């Protein structure tokens, strides 16, 4: 496994974006492609979080070792594609297209583009597929994340269902379902959400913003949905958000998995969740 640290120029983001990538380079044959997991961080995070706070490297190496059955019968016949993981930095933008407009803090036109949505759903996928040995198949392409990244992964997969065949959400910060009094941190304050969503009150019932409504709309439209995996820590203060989404999907008859495990809004739980996601890829 090679570890890549990449700086790429993003048109959607209007800036250089840093990402880390795990590619099983040493094991690949010429022309061989990998399954891909795009892995999203939470608020206040960066491309480093998943690497430093979990055993992602060792877990992925073990996962990839099981892709090839070389020991049992002496043949090196492949059982499946190896996995590459792409982990970009995404600021605190809730993986959203931040609208142009008046910046409430600086009181100047919000001229710089930060289109996280198009970056994650289109540009990042196209660019990494062009530069790295990644499969172009929907069923080989997964997106998952924790907290804000859980919301981002589910929403991005639903916005681009032709691109992603799997969506995983851990400890999902389903921001449009927060009670207003629960939004106590700077990154989910009215000011910040106003910058991100334009009209946040309207976003709460917008079938392009609210994950539950997005599922409902996709179901009505007959869209082929990704495989869905949801998990939350038993002690996580955000647990009701995931439980409610799980129940709503159940009542809509949308196939998905929901699991709970001891833990709060913390890395020990997310490492466990990563292991569960790897098992499903």
């Amino acid at each position, binding site marked *: 496994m090679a570890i*890549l640290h*990449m*700086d790429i120029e993003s048109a959607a983001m209007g800036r250089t974006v840093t990402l880390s990538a795990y590619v099983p380079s*040493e094991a*690949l044959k010429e022309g061989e492609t990998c399954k891909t997991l795009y892995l999203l961080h939470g608020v206040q995070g960066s491309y480093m979080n998943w690497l430093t706070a979990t055993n992602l490297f060792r877990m992925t190496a073990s996962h990839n070792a099981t892709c090839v059955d070389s020991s049992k019968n002496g043949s090196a016949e492949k059982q499946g594609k190896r996995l590459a993981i792409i982990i970009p930095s995404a600021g605190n933008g809730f993986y959203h297209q931040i609208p142009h407009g008046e910046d409430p803090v600086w009181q100047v036109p919000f001229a710089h583009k930060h289109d996280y949505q198009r970056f994650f759903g289109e540009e990042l996928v196209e660019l990494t597929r*062009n*530069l790295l040995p990644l499969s172009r198949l929907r069923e080989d392409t997964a997106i998952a994340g924790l907290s804000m990244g859980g919301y981002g992964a589910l929403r991005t997969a639903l916005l681009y269902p032709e691109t992603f065949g799997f969506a995983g959400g851990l400890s999902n910060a389903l921001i449009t379902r927060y009670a207003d009094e629960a939004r106590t941190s700077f990154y989910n304050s009215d000011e910040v959400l106003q910058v991100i969503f334009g009209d946040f009150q309207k976003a709460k019932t917008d079938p392009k913003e609210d994950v539950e409504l997005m599922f409902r709309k996709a179901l009505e439209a007959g869209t082929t949905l990704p495989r869905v995996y949801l998990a939350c820590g038993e002690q996580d203060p955000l647990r009701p958000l995931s439980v409610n989404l799980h129940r709503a999907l159940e009542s809509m008859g949308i196939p998905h998995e929901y699991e709970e495990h001891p833990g709060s809004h913390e890395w020990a739980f997310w490492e466990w969740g990563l292991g569960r996601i790897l098992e499903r890829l």
Partner: protein
Amino acid sequence: MAVIQMDFMSGALQRWTTAQILLPEDVKKGEKLKTLILLHGNGGNHTDWLNYSNIARYVRPYPLAVILPDGDNSYYLNFPERGEYYEEFIAKELPELMGCTFPLSDKREDTFIAGLSMGGGAAIRMGLRRGDVFSKAAGLSSGLTVQAEARMVGHGSDIYAAYEEGKQKEPPYEMARLFLSIGEEDPLLHINRRFHTFLEKEGVDHVYEEHPGAHNWDFWDGHIRDVLAFLMPEEKEGR
């Protein structure tokens, strides 16, 4: 332009090592890039060219991947007694591994090597001896080592011996086309001039240039652009 740092396990060096990679971002689906392996000098590492030159800016118009490996102070030679095979690493493992990771052409005509000082000498040496891999080799202020340098004896560093080795290979083997450029105040001027005269006598087609300048980054930053033009003359106007 994607600027990449890659950490990976090298079989030839028997340890993890680090390389920097520059890739154009507008690669089309299925497109295969030409590749330049660009070597640093003695005392440097894989970050030198990025830190001390404008290579990332100069390479923009070219559909070229630039690989910047870490060669330690090895002169990019094989050291069996230490289990470190730098020439194998540069001429075999690196192109193969990078080809499995990034969209690179594996054709000889699309694969180049260049370097400065210690790396320039190694680029020219591998151009002579590994012409099966590299179609063009360029050295700036090349440290063309000769057998008389005691610490390199026995590791195949002698540039004239490398030439004889390349010359004696069976057709269709071809040595890489060579480009040598050196500063007029560079202490290595005379060994470069002597090698140029030798190549002329042997009737080897090559480019040799002398320019004002010394053994420093002003010279290398300025003349790496000549190297890019030599490697890809057809791309001079950009794409």
